[in-house]
């Protein structure tokens, strides 16, 4: 299979995440964070990938040591809280609550021939509202301006998780 020379080797990341599912180390996963937002809005610079996963191991560590060991065996490196593939940092984050719902309801996509899932636009906005940092408010504004959004679904998610959109 073709290896990517891009400074953003997303296909490699997705192949590795699919490998984690096949190995039984995670149940499911989806692209979250900025790279998920870029699915719906104009491209912007981001310097890491957030992969939210549903752990196969329900223990306290969420199977993270085994995930790290598997990816290190593929040549990935560890740099602080990131795993690094071809110089690009990736965070594997155990999903829970709202993010677990986002993974379960994420639509399937194909990226450069690699099957994957990416958070729905409505979940991206709800997660940004739940975190509430300055950059999350900017993301909400950008998503509301540019993404096609199912307002009914968004309101349902916000109500289910007792969230409100901030005043922009």
């Amino acid at each position, binding site marked *: 299979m073709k290896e990517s020379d891009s400074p*953003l080797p997303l296909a490699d990341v997705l192949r590795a995440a699919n490998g984690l599912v096949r190995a039984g180390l995670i149940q499911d996963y989806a692209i979250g964070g900025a790279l998920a937002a870029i699915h719906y809005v*104009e*491209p912007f610079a981001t310097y890491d990938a957030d992969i939210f996963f549903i752990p196969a191991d329900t223990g306290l560590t969420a199977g993270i040591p085994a995930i790290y060991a598997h990816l290190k065996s593929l040549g990935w490196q560890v740099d602080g809280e990131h795993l690094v593939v071809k110089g690009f940092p990736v965070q594997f984050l155990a999903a829970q609550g709202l993010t677990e719902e986002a993974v379960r309801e994420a639509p399937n996509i194909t990226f450069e021939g690699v099957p994957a899932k990416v958070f729905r636009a409505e979940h991206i906005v709800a997660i940004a509202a739940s975190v509430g940092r300055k950059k999350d408010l900017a993301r909400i504004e950008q998503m509301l*301006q540019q993404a096609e959004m199912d307002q009914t679904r968004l309101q349902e998610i916000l109500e289910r998780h007792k969230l409100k959109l901030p005043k922009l």
Partner: protein
Amino acid sequence: MKPEMRRALARESYEEKIRKVGQLIALARAFPRRSPAQSCPSNPPTLSESPIPYRTKNPKS
């Protein structure tokens, strides 16, 4: 950039948008931002960085 141009960019394929993000990352690596400490008056640029002689004297003094 005009809002309609931004919305047009938003409608491009994911592969195309990720390719553009990759270009932005490559540009940022090639031309890293200078930190504020490097551009503050107490740390003037070297002659090779600045073609204009750096003024250190306060014009009000």
